[in-house]
């Protein structure tokens, strides 16, 4: 079997276990799961037989309205397999398990996601803002972040919808 088919089989099996959804978007395999299953999913993906997705390329978040998607780009240094895992979390309670215990390289990436989206990574050793200063208000990459000047922002934030 080809690499891609083996990977697909593993991902399908894993999707059943963690109640996830598998998609193929522009040739890339995407596994979407609930945020609470993320550690289990990533640990399983890291230890796939024959096609381990054990290298974390990137960790980021996307604002998709009601929810945030925390996106993990995985691949391997020993093979062509790539996998994108998305953990969906609620906008009101943006909490997800940290993966710094699996990949130490996730440290700065999670701090960046916290800085830009306000996502709390449970178990992160040092979850502080990385680019912006501690007193900075709001999370810039959220879609509802007001980019106007400070004076206007105070007015806009108190406006009711439709005003």
């Amino acid at each position, binding site marked *: 079997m080809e690499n891609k088919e083996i990977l697909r089989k593993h991902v399908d099996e894993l999707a059943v276990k963690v109640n996830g959804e598998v998609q193929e*978007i*522009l040739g*890339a395999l995407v596994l979407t799961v609930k945020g609470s299953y993320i550690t289990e999913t990533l640990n399983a993906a890291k230890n796939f037989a024959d096609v381990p997705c*054990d*290298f*974390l*390329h*990137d960790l*980021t978040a*996307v*604002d998709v309205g009601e929810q945030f998607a925390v*996106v993990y*780009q995985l691949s391997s*240094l020993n093979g*062509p397999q*790539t996998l*994108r895992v998305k953990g969906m979390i609620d906008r009101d309670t943006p909490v997800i398990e940290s993966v710094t215990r699996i*990949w*130490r*390289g*996730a*440290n*700065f*990436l999670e701090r*960046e996601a916290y800085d*830009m989206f306000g996502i709390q990574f449970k178990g992160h050793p040092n979850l502080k803002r*990385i*680019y*912006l*200063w501690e007193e900075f208000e709001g999370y*810039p*990459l959220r879609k509802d*972040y007001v*980019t106007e000047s400070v004076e206007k922002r105070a007015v806009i934030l108190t406006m009711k919808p439709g005003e």
Partner: protein
Amino acid sequence: MTLERTEELALNLGPQHPSMHGVFRMVAHFDGEIITKIDPKIGYLHRGLEKLAESRTYAQFIPYTDRLDYLAAPHNNMAYVQAVEKLANIQIPERAEYLRVIFAELARIASHLVFIGSLALDMAGWTAWGYCFRDRERILDLFEMTAGSRLTVNAMRIGGFSQEVPDEFWPALKSFLDDLPEMLEEYQGIFYGNEIAMGRMKSVGILTKEDAANFSTTGPVLRASGVKHDLRKDAPYGIYDRFEFDVPVLYGCDSYDRGLIRLLEIKESAKIIRQAMRDIPEGPIMAKVPKVLKPPVGEVYHAVENPKGELGFYLVSDGSTKPARLRIRSATFINIQLLPAISPGWKIQDVIAIFATLDAVLGEVDK
């Protein structure tokens, strides 16, 4: 027996310091002369590029990518435009592909020359710095005669290349490549073969293979720790699968190998440029791309092998003219995490050298 300890000293290095390669700042904790802990502080050059992208059209964002890793601007252009082309399914003309490769590899050489020069400079080797910048100047001249600017070249467009190279470009490129072996020999003699440089870097700042992989390290830093991983070979993008070249791998895992690997990569880049010069066809350099580009709903992650590691763009399109989310995965932002991990136990001057071998460019770290 009790070991005597000195009082811990916290020293603030940067953001304005010649050895900090821009505006990097770190708080170093010492026990006597030995580093016990390093706390990197970044964000002094943060411009919010990812947020800016959400209010720009796809084409308008290309000049911003120049400002990421400003020592290798064509590479950033290429990563971004290829990501958009993948998303919108645009095929580009052959000649543009070759021009892209030539510019990207020239940028790699230029970036590595700055690396060698500044690594030498960080260890007080002024002469090597002068040599490297003398030679890098010729590459910048090549950029200037094509695109009009030297550093932020903005050479690529969605669907092709910005303009045809002038007639004097090819002879100048050829003479540069002809002189390159001699230059490399000079760097070898003046810097890499230097006893002091060797003493300062050999067996210093060990980064094991396992640590490198666990820290998501990419690029020359990873390859100097004995991992053969190069996106140009492992996940070929553009037309890189047509060229014959080797991926240098070193197994020393120390500062010296992280330095030396760049010299070897310059040779491979020259090989690629020579093949591209030989094979480049005549023809158009731009595909027909709609003036108002609206990629279909979807998402794509596209990564290229930047001189400093993997540069990836994760684009999410909602079908409008502007990206819903543009994520920049920059190599040195992630590689810089190695500094606190491998520095403890070394002296401050060694840490300056270790930091130089990570080749951080703050435009890319801070985005």
